[in-house]
């Protein structure tokens, strides 16, 4: 993707006839963000590909603008669909940074909200509440998690509809000020878009987040541990692989989030194991090491592996 390219136009315009794509690419510094995305986020191949495509499109759009060929800002609203814990929020933060570097949003901050922050409790409460959030998100990215909760078809007097109307209006009229990202489970988002066609037509990029494979989850776990200065022993690593397989079969599995929670509990057990023997002197090695026992004490093994299969 980083072939040294130089674009030329036929040169009818007063603005620059030639632009150095590489210089432009380096200047905005998105290469760095994209590389960081590759390095720090494990898996998510299709997502990364899509983001690279979007970034390329925006870079070209930026050049077109410089050459006086662009006609207004492109629609940038997106929808992220995927199961919980697949990195939607994290990617939203990166997208905001990419958009900011390319100059498509002015500030590059992300305001993350759910239905509660947008929809009011009584008549006349919703509009000010939604506008409050929109005002805070201006110049950045508004990330609406579990967006389908905004629309409750079973209750026709639900105030969610009001919030949707205000959102749609701002998404249309203030495209230069705000990028909206809707996120949620794939099937429910699909239903949401079906009942609110206005949203679908205003969203340019639909990005689907796949579930992580076992290997990717293990990689994520190791990355998290490294960040916190912990280490698996080889046995613990093998035990954790079994843990992942067992946990996946259980309900309420939330991909990376479940892994993070599991690691928190494992650290708790490790601390308890260390504290149990107060007379012992500990080395740094002892403190950073997580043993198989810490992993195997999990409830998941009691119910999952034996009962589930």
């Amino acid at each position: 993707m980083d072939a040294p390219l130089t674009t030329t136009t036929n040169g009818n315009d007063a603005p620059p006839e030639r632009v150095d794509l590489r210089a432009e690419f380096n200047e905005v510094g998105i290469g760095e963000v994209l590389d960081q995305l590759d390095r720090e986020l494990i898996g998510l191949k299709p997502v990364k590909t899509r983001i690279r495509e979007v970034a390329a499109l925006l870079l070209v759009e930026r050049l077109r603008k410089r050459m006086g060929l662009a006609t207004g800002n492109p629609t940038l609203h997106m929808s992220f669909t995927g199961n919980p814990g697949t990195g939607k929020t994290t990617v939203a933060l990166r997208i905001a940074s990419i958009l900011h570097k390319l100059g498509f949003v002015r500030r590059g901050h992300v305001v993350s909200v759910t239905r509660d922050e947008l929809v009011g409790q009584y008549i006349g409460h919703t509009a000010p509440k939604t506008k409050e959030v929109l005002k805070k998100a201006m110049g950045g990215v508004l990330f609406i998690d579990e967006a389908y909760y905004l629309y409750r078809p079973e209750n026709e007097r639900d105030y969610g509809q009001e919030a949707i109307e205000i959102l749609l209006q701002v998404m249309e009229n203030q495209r230069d000020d705000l990028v909206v990202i809707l996120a949620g489970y794939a099937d429910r988002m699909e239903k949401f878009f079906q009942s609110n066609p206005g949203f679908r037509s205003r969203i340019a990029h639909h990005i689907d987040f796949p579930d992580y494979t076992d290997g990717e989850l293990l990689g994520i776990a190791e990355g998290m541990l490294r960040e916190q200065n912990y280490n698996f022993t080889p046995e613990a690593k093998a035990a954790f692989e079994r843990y992942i397989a067992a946990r996946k079969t259980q309900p309420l599995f939330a991909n990376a989030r479940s892994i993070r929670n599991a690691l928190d509990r494992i650290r708790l057990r490790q601390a308890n194991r260390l504290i149990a023997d107060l007379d012992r002197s500990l080395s740094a090695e002892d403190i950073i090491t997580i043993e198989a026992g810490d992993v195997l004490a999990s409830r998941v093994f009691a119910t999952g592996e034996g009962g589930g299969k």
Partner: protein
Amino acid sequence: MRITQGCFSFLPDLTDEQISAQVQYALGKGWAVNLEFTDDPHPRNTYWEMWGLPMFDLQDAAGVMMELAECRKVYGDRYIRLSAFDSSHGWESVRLSFIVNRPKEEPGFRLGRQEVESRNMRYTTRAYSADKPEGHRYGG
């Protein structure tokens, strides 16, 4: 008679672009921007009505400009001013305030003279527009 008050009172009215730049400056300083309106032009009238709540935690001027556009839609025939409040310790007061909207016609003030004891004179100003009841002063 063109009423002036607050910052930039010696300048022509700011354009929206200039207002937006001032708002961005205020937000950059961490001040909360607030919109107020009134139809009583007297300089000593400090009781302007608030347009919604002061806007805290904004990052970009677009949010304020959106509210201003809405306020103008409803009260475009009145004075609207924008103020920026600094909540930091030691300040806790308005740091910036200027008029962002005014009625098309400003009839001005009548100077009243009152003769009091020993040929002294007391002066008072009274806005012509204030003769009409509130809400009907500028053709609205």
